């Protein structure tokens, strides 16, 4: 114990942080050792983000002590922390999208030629060399925004490490990565570890923690619930530590909160609540047919870029189409109008909560009421009483944790923001809800609540189209799964076929089959 204290690069000793009405951190001890990958897990509101912000100089602790290489440290600003060798990779990439990849990587450290002019040739060569070590093989002269999110994240990581970081903090680094990119990232993380860098890894994906982390600290309600080696810590035990629930309780529920039985309505052959026929858009969608019956949860499976998000957007008219139509209760929907879709009872919970979901300048209350405003108004004048009543009902039903309905939505945790968006959609009483990654980036507790809610809504007769990269969630949540690949439906799984293995097999099978066809066509 004594040895680890001496060796720690960065250490929190009894750190407390108070916000108005909340004790976000309560005497947290955490030591980051050189050459370890340390997982930090916990539900939303457990204090993970706050702790990271204390480590990186964004927040100043109200109590306790921060130690850096064994000496007391106080980072006045994020820049101080960076200078001390602490780098953070956030969920959103903090780079300059219009500048070239090379400039982003070497920003502020460009190789200079004579007269202090940037030596472009050298810069590009250097950037290409560094990035190839991170599995990014691209033309480094291209603007950063032309890269995929995964590659952008690698650039951010490469940049952080190149600035001589001794501590790298990663907040949900894999949330927008494809499996192949995740592998590369893990390779990089292991390399950093071997070089003696301390890595703090924050993620909701337990699989990843077990693959790459050495130790784990579990935060719950602002306190450390557990800290220790990860190997040998049972997965269910870890979940129970995070949730603060008993082990057998977790086991009984399974890992997701979906009930095991299929929905009643799913067996019936009633008319579909929404039916899309031949949705086509060049390079994106290739004649997709989807239908959702009332009370049915239809899953869309497939790899990233298979056209799942695009299918959902096309159905609600948020993406222009070259062909195809959407029928709601047998009647065709006017294309290209989300207003028409919503009026007909079809709503989309978008994948990107921040960019397409919340209105950050507005309160929780106004965000919930947004889509339902016309229904809450008479002659264009909104009724505050009606809104208050509705908001109260939804905040209670979805257990939205906010100081008050008037708190800014941008101040809430990701899980609560997602619940606000769900409330926004439920407030317009949809017949069909399209959910694009409804539990991405939210904590285990909120995830379980959202999953339970989806189940409950389907029981009440709502049709749900569920898009999820989490296979477990897809399999346990959906009654029927359509597997997409390159903008086309390549398989439908029903009943007992709805398993993770079958989804993966369908994707893989079809790939082989298509490849064969392609070859045949060329010859």
């Amino acid at each position, binding site marked *: 114990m004594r040895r680890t204290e001496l060796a720690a690069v960065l250490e929190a000793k009894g750190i407390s942080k108070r916000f108005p009405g909340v004790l976000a951190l309560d005497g947290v001890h955490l030591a980051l050792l050189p050459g370890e990958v340390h997982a930090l897990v916990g539900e939303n509101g457990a204090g993970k983000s706050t702790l990271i912000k204390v480590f990186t100089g964004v927040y100043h602790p*109200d*109590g306790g002590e921060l130690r850096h290489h064994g000496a007391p440290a106080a980072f006045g600003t994020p820049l101080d922390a960076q200078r001390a060798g602490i780098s953070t990779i956030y969920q959103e990439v903090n780079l300059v999208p219009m500048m070239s990849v090379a400039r982003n990587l070497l920003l502020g450290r460009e190789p200079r030629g004579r007269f202090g002019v940037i030596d472009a040739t050298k810069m590009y060569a250097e950037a290409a060399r560094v990035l190839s070590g991170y599995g990014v093989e691209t033309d480094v002269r291209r603007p950063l925004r032309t890269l995929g999110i995964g590659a952008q994240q690698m650039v951010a990581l490469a940049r952080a490490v190149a600035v001589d970081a001794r501590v790298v903090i990663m907040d949900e680094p894999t949330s927008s990565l494809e499996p192949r990119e995740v592998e590369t990232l893990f390779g990089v993380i292991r390399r950093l570890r071997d070089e003696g860098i301390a890595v703090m890894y924050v993620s909701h994906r337990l699989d990843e923690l077990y693959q790459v982390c050495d130790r784990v600290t579990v935060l719950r309600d602002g306190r450390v619930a557990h800290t220790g080696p990860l190997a040998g810590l049972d997965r269910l035990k870890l979940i129970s530590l995070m949730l603060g629930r008993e082990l057998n309780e977790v086991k009984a529920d399974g890992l997701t909160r979906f009930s095991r039985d299929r929905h009643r309505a799913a067996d019936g052959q009633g008319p579909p609540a929404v039916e899309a026929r031949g949705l086509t858009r060049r390079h994106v969608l290739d004649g997709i047919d989807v239908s959702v019956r009332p009370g049915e949860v239809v899953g869309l499976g497939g790899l990233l870029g298979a056209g799942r998000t695009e299918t959902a957007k096309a159905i609600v008219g*948020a993406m222009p189409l070259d062909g195809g139509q959407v029928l709601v209760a047998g009647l065709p929907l006017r294309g290209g109008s*989300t207003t028409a879709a919503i009026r007909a009872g079809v709503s989309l919970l*978008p994948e990107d909560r921040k960019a*397409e979901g919340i*209105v950050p300048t*507005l309160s929780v209350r106004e965000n919930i009421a*947004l889509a339902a405003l016309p229904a809450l108004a008479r002659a264009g004048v909104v009724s505050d009483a009606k809104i208050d009543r509705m908001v109260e009902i939804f905040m209670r039903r979805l257990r939205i944790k906010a100081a008050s309905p008037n708190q800014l939505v941008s101040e809430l945790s990701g899980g609560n923001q997602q619940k606000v968006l769900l409330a926004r959609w439920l407030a317009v009483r949809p017949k069909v809800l399209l959910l694009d990654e409804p539990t991405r980036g939210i904590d285990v507790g909120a995830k379980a609540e959202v999953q339970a809610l989806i189940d409950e809504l389907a029981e009440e007769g709502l049709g749900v189209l569920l898009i999820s990269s989490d296979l477990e969630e897809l399999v346990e949540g959906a009654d029927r799964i359509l597997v997409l690949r390159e903008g086309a439906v390549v398989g439908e799984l029903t009943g007992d076929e709805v398993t993770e293995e079958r989804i993966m097999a369908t994707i893989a099978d079809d790939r082989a089959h298509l490849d064969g066809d392609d070859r045949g066509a060329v010859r």
Partner: protein
Amino acid sequence: MTELTSKPAPPSGARSMADLKPRIFAWVQDYGVYAAVLALLLFNVLFTPHFLDASNFRTQFVQVTPIVIVSLGMALVIGTQGIDLSVGSVMALAAALVALYLGYGALPALIVAVIGGAVVGAAGGALVSYVGVQPIVATLALLVGVRGIANVLVPQLVEFRNPELIALGSSSVAGIPVIVLIAAALTLIVLFVVRRTTFGRQVVAIGGNRSASELSGLPVKRVLLIVYVISGLLAALAGVLATARLQASDPTSLGLFIELSAITAVVVGGTPLTGGRIRVLSTVMGALLMQLLAATLIKHNLPQSWTQMVQAVIILAAVYATRERANR
């Protein structure tokens, strides 16, 4: 909750400057303009002779009226992340139209002028929302073009003797000039629209996050169009009132640079240029602050260059407070 209250409060010394700063900025953004107006009034009451005279107040209010009316529309436009540079030219167009149609009577002339403003606003709004031109470019084109049209319609200053229009510009009700009452009424209407109507809430939401608003089924393009129409309407109305007060139509110079005064009023009032918030009363206060400041410095015999420099400092302070808060 009990757990929280039973804990001893953190020592106040531990609360560093960095925690206090955002709150100060938030306060400055929300109430700074009111405090500044009050401070300035207090200063004048103490140090400026005859400041409390009714005639002085009248003059100040009458002078600031066109800016207030124009900045109401500007606040809406800025709330959608847009900007409307065409307002000054719209005032000139309104002045020209009034002069041309005064033969049919004051009211028809006023109606034609306001319709003209709405048409210009619709043109700008259509460019912004349906064609997708950036607001600054679309309205810059209108700033140049519409002033040209106004000058073609009425090439030089035209005086008029229509008693109704003159009365609109110079009469008072209960000692308050009619045009000030009109500005006050318009302020209340815009305030109501922003706070209590579906349209107003949609304007703010679109400014806060356009994609989210689109996915939420808001008629984004129509709302944007209407916002620019309102701005044009208000600018035209300001043009008519200013013309009535001058008792002459002067399309060459009426409303020159008023877009800058209006943007200043909005910014000083604490409305962020990044959209998503609209502060109506603070915008009016921002216009008043700039007016009072100019009047105060003039009354103390300081040259106009001083006024400009002090105004610059105030604008910077307002932007700084808004930005610091957004960075939090």
